[in-house]
């Protein structure tokens, strides 16, 4: 609270959480900083420690050691003040079932001391933004998953938090509802709200986050922009080829060997699922993938192998995760 205060929205230093009776740390020495106005993604499989990290930062989980600051407020030392700076949208619907949609928003504002005359106007504005105006006076008992998510985000914004935590906001939503949530997150970003989002969807992290932290087993394995993370992979881009060989051996050995000798090719591997009579090959290239199409085609033609399909592939965060942990995300 005193002295030099960084302008970081969230600052996490070496946080550790060990639950009672657990043999390993749920979060094990994680550090990161989220700049003000940034959309920050925490990506990892279930059990990676993402939700525990969010729990710590939103004062619901007690730290074992380390420091967490939200808007400059120490969440362990001053949880009451921290709560006025942040809002959280949990994975599970925790709306107040005794209240209508609008009342959920209004009462939340009341808990946070929003002046009475501001509450109704802000609620109307948020109900509109989240497409809830027509159902505002319905009970929350029978809303769909997508609607519950929208109501919870709207509710969270009622007290204009500096940092909004979204814990797996689109898990279990249909594609339309998911895109709606994505659009609203982008709106918030434009308004300068800092958003920390957890997800186990690569697509979501790539689509929304300015920077992504990859978590597994309580550790933060990598942290950068999605582009930088994928660039860091060996063989930054790929060519996926489908070939069929007219001389009939069909095992792909000839292709692999010839392509591997080309300059600019880092690695060539056969991909398992190919149709009978064809061979599917992935070529990892060090330079620009489109520049490699011609040499690859020529090489294959010289061998009498026909090229049926070429696809240029950017490595995804999924590949980054596999490269870091040696296994797929789910």
């Amino acid at each position: 609270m005193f002295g030099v205060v960084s302008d970081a929205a969230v600052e996490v230093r070496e946080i550790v959480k060990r639950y009672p009776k657990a043999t390993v740390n749920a979060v094990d020495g994680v550090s990161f900083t989220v700049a003000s106005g940034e959309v920050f993604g925490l990506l990892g499989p279930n059990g990676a420690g993402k939700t525990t990290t969010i729990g710590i930062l939103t004062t619901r989980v007690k730290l074992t050691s380390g420091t967490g600051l939200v808007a400059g407020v120490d969440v362990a030392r001053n949880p009451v003040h921290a709560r006025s700076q942040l809002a959280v949208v949990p994975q599970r619907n925790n709306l107040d079932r005794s209240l209508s949609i609008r009342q959920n928003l209004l009462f939340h504002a009341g808990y946070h001391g929003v002046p009475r005359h501001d509450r109704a106007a802000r609620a109307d504005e948020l109900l509109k933004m989240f497409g809830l105006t027509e159902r505002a006076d319905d009970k929350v008992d029978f809303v769909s998953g997508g609607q519950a998510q929208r109501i919870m985000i709207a509710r969270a914004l009622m007290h204009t938090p500096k940092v909004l935590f979204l814990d797996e906001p689109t898990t279990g939503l249909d594609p339309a509802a998911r895109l709606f949530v994505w659009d609203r997150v982008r709106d918030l970003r434009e308004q300068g709200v800092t958003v920390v989002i957890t997800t186990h969807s690569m697509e979501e992290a790539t689509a929304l986050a300015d920077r992504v932290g990859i978590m597994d087993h309580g550790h933060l394995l990598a942290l950068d922009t999605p582009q930088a993370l994928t660039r860091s992979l060996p063989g930054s881009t790929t060519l996926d080829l489908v070939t069929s060989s007219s001389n009939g051996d069909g095992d792909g050995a000839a292709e692999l060997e010839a392509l591997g000798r080309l300059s600019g090719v880092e690695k060539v591997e056969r991909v398992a699922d190919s149709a009978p009579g064809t061979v599917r090959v992935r070529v990892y290239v060090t330079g620009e993938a489109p520049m490699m199409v011609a040499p690859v085609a020529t090489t294959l033609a010289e061998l009498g192998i026909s090229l049926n399909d070429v696809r240029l592939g950017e490595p995804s965060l999924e590949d980054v995760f596999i490269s870091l942990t040696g296994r797929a995300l789910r």
Partner: protein
Amino acid sequence: MSGPAATARTTGPASVFLAVLWRDIFVTGRELPIFLIQVILQPLFLLFVFGKVLSELGYTQPGYSQLLFPGVVSLTAILTALQSTALPLVIEFSFTKEIEDRLLAPMPTALVAVEKMVFAAIRAIIAALVMFPIGVIILGSVPWHPGAAPMFIVTLILGTLTGAAMGLVLGTAVPPNRINVMFTLVLTPLLFTGCVQYPWPSLDHLRWFQIVTLFNPMTYISEGMRGAMVPSVPHIRPEICLLALVAALGIFSSIGIRGFIRRAID
């Protein structure tokens, strides 16, 4: 401070507390008739059968209904308070999770527990007061004199808070799948060892049972109210009742609030 916006809204814990209390009052207010039926039915039948039917049939002595009535008010007060904290807590922590939004309000977590107790006490006080018109209807009259008010009010407030604290302990300590069994195991003994149906000094001939009743906080509410409303019937001295209630409130609320914080924060 950390920035201009951080200080823009200064919300004291007191106003947050009132906002959270208002939520509970607002929700209960809409369901008042259901709430009243729920809490009044049991004491009503107790009063009717023991106070009216048995006395009409001549199985009880004249005047019994007058010493039963304070006991029934006490029973209503403590059981309503206990159920008003225990059941909602089990549901809100385990199933609906709807308490989470209030746990994230900018006030100490212990105050959310205190709010639950205060709200349960308010409900229980209303239920206890409603027993008076019901008593008049069933029994024809209820024992009352102006001097009864101070002791009655203090006992009522302390007693309902104690009941609420006991509910807080139950609601946070008992696993949700056991709550039904727990209610039977706790409520039934509570109901019959709390000096509702008999004044404590009259148990002199049943010494062991007299000692058992001393462990039930309800005994001190019943006896405190009896002493206030029908002072002519032998009863435990008022100052002992109040002392015992303060002690019970202190013990149960400290265990209950600790249990609440344990459930609220991992």
